[in-house]
């Protein structure tokens, strides 16, 4: 018999704020976290701005931060977010918690590249149009650091969280680009349902705001280049949208077996009732233009949740603000929801916080839980000109009070991974 899966804790470190409460307040205040890139000199890049996490100091956020001194930027965000979630869940106060029954399932990105050394090596060992690997090795052994190099493997965030909480249950990291943390939460749900774990720490962390990350997305022409209108550059579903804004951060949720949570007197924040996953199997560069893959994930989640499209009160969109994503997502919603697509409110918080890549879905799921708690929908900001191809109700420009109980959250990744979650309020 499959177990019910509930959310009992949430934490986030993102460009808007370093806590769930402050993030939500900023979103309901329609704030934008997008500003000129300060992490490195990006003034001559096609895109000069991003959504950066500012002034986050792990030493102030948690006790015992010195253990994590080698961790990459995204990893410090993850530890901070996970610590908040863990405390909210109350698991830190459970005496005799069986930590072999507590797992970790993350969608975390690669660690922080040692950019200066990595790059200078390619210059200093350059010879006749290629890297002289013999010289490169000699210099690399002098310059490169064991910890910085090892921490780049994306599974290292698991190691830090396992150490921080003392966990020994199953541990997975997935990296399905922009869908990763939604996928992680979905697969974590499957582990709880099957009774493999009593509780699981899940979500995602990522920072691609480094010179090669920005380069990669700029070369793909995926980013907004609205360098003259930085705070309003991210315009999901809007006519003048010209790409996403690269963000960074981490969001973590604690999922538990409902019975386990209730028996220990935990406060249930929401329940995960549906998960769907699919692949476009179309092209590495483009989404399926008809949105068939995205629709498949949404339908699978609805079937898994045993609810009908008309039961969905709100859709938290992937809504990246690229021309392609927003049009395809709109098509997919119409194909799944039929006429009801015009009635169900849809919004994308990426107008405010940018695109946190692997961490995006978990951050957005937190906003879904809060939407149910406060009966209010977060807005799609910077929405001025309607795109005839995107003609649904995107909750433009201001939050909206609404009756919300059943919510769908979508994430789609480069290369065609599609993941959808459905949650309901506490019962």
């Amino acid at each position, binding site marked *: 018999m499959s177990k019910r899966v509930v959310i009992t804790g949430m934490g986030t470190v993102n460009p808007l704020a370093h806590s769930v409460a402050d993030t939500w307040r900023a979103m309901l205040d329609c704030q934008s976290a997008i500003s000129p890139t300060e992490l*490195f000199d*990006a003034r*001559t*890049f*096609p895109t000069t701005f991003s959504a950066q996490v500012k002034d986050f100091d792990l030493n102030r956020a948690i006790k015992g931060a010195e*253990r994590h001194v080698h961790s990459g930027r995204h990893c410090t965000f993850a530890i901070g977010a996970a610590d908040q979630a863990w405390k909210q869940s109350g698991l830190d106060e459970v005496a005799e918690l069986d930590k072999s029954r507590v797992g970790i399932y993350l969608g975390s990105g*690669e660690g922080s590249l040692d950019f*200066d050394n990595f*790059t*200078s090596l*390619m*210059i200093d060992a350059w010879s006749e149009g*290629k*890297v002289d*690997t*013999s010289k*490169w*090795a000699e210099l*690399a*052994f002098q310059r490169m650091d*064991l910890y910085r*190099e090892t921490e*780049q*493997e*994306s*599974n*290292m965030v*698991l*190691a830090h969280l*396992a*150490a921080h909480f*003392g*966990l*020994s249950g199953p*541990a997975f*990291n*997935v*990296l*399905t680009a922009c869908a990763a943390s939604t*996928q992680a939460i979905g*697969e974590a749900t*499957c582990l709880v349902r099957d009774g493999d774990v009593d509780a699981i720490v899940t979500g995602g962390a990522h920072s691609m705001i480094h*010179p*090669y990350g920005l*380069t*990669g997305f700029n*070369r*793909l*022409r995926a980013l907004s280049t609205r360098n003259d209108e930085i705070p309003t550059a991210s315009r999901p579903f809007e006519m003048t949208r010209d790409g996403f804004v690269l963000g960074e951060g981490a969001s973590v949720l604690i999922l538990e077996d409902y019975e386990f949570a209730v028996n220990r007197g935990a406060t249930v924040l929401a329940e995960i009732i549906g998960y769907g*996953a*699919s*692949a476009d*199997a179309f092209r*590495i560069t483009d989404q399926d233009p008809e949105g068939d893959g995205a629709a*498949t994930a949404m339908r*699978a989640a609805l079937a898994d949740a045993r609810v009908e499209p008309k039961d969905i009160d709100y859709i938290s969109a992937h809504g990246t603000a690229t021309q392609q994503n927003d049009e395809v997502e709109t098509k997919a919603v119409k194909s799944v929801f039929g006429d009801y697509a015009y009635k169900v409110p849809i919004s994308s918080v990426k107008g405010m916080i940018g695109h946190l890549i692997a961490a995006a879905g978990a951050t957005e799921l937190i906003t879904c839980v809060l939407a149910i708690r406060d009966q209010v929908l977060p807005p799609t900001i910077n929405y001025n000109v309607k795109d005839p191809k995107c003609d649904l109700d995107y909750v433009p420009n201001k939050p909206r009070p609404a009756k919300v109980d059943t919510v769908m959250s979508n994430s789609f990744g*480069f*290369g*065609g*991974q599609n993941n959808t979650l459905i949650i309901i309020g506490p019962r």
Partner: protein
Amino acid sequence: MTRPVAVTGLGVVTPAGIGVEEFSTAIHEGAGAIGEITLFDSSGFDCRIGGQLQGFSARKFVPKSYRKAVKVMARDIEIAVAAADLAVKDSGIVTRAAEDQEMNIDPKRLGCKIGAGLICTDLDELGTAVNTAVENGKFSFVKWGKHGIDNLTPLWLLKYLPNMLACHVTIIHGAEGPSNTITCGEASSHLAIGEAARTISQGAADAIIAGGAESKLNPMGLLRQSLLNRLCVDGNESPVDACRPFDSRHSGTALGEGGGMLLLEDIDRAASRGARIYAEVVGFGAACDQGGIDIETPTAGGLDKAVSKAISSAGIEPQQVDMIVAHGTGVPREDSCECQAWKTAMGDALADIPAVAITGSIGSLFAGGGGTQLAIAAKALETQQVPPTRNFASCADGCHLNLADHPRSEKIKYVVSGSFSIGGQSAALVLKKRESY
């Protein structure tokens, strides 16, 4: 597992052979495929050997209409694409890759879960662009932003995203079902296959291409593993004898490139189409430990817990296990941790259960290694033979695994395979021989 899942296809790409028959024959004969590194000039490294693929061309494994895409495949992606193609063909399932036939599976019920690692960028490719943005011998952000970045192909980033292994595979085969990319180092393949079995068992897919692929045989990979002090540095003169897992003379691992994919399938579907069933996946366990951040003093990532869970989820006792496929990196401190983990999980039964480690033949394949371990496990159920462990003569201190330097004929019904990552995650799977009905 709630419900067993069938293994109906095996696809491997390894230094000792491409294709499961060639590979398993080579392992059975104790072949040594580790040699001098020729992929790049490794003269600046203390360890200059590795397991390189021989005569490998990804183009052979890609439908004609998709051959152009090989240009945007990093080595890891090429390996994954080839291993997946071999697994699919071996299974008899017709996918979109067969351009002249109809698919005989609902695309939305065919999934893909692949273990992958951190793919290193080609230093010459990036270096060519970087060296257009140098001022006074130093990298100039201003020049890079202005024109340096234009020297990279627009799709540059897509060569190196770990999920691109699964993306190319799903596109080639028209696999529109659940898709995932697990990045947990050496535990990745086992985790991906375990998760895939669960996905089928829970009903979200009918068949899944599952496994892993990786190559760290590039300067960055060799550097990182050297910094970790994991490589054997005493084997440059005799590479085939250099990597000696669990042997008293073990002195480090060698890097390899490769991977393995399994075609997992709903058991009723497999039986009803008369597929060859190599094995049933009957048990899965995963765990982690808290020592993963102390990368200089590794642990086995909770492998004891993973193995115990895998065995109990299979509904069997340790003494019912007939064969063990160990991870066996050949790094002394890792071998020692691993042996302790198997001992903890298996107890006194361990001494009587024949075991094998294949790293001595092919090197460490990281995210791809588990897939090759499971191919060996599945073949053993078919042949009823435990392959030899290359370069094993006598047990290292504290090693309780029952290894041998020669093949052994055994009655094999249950095989356990396990692995663990640098970083502290582990996973294990139990395969069972399909009983005839």
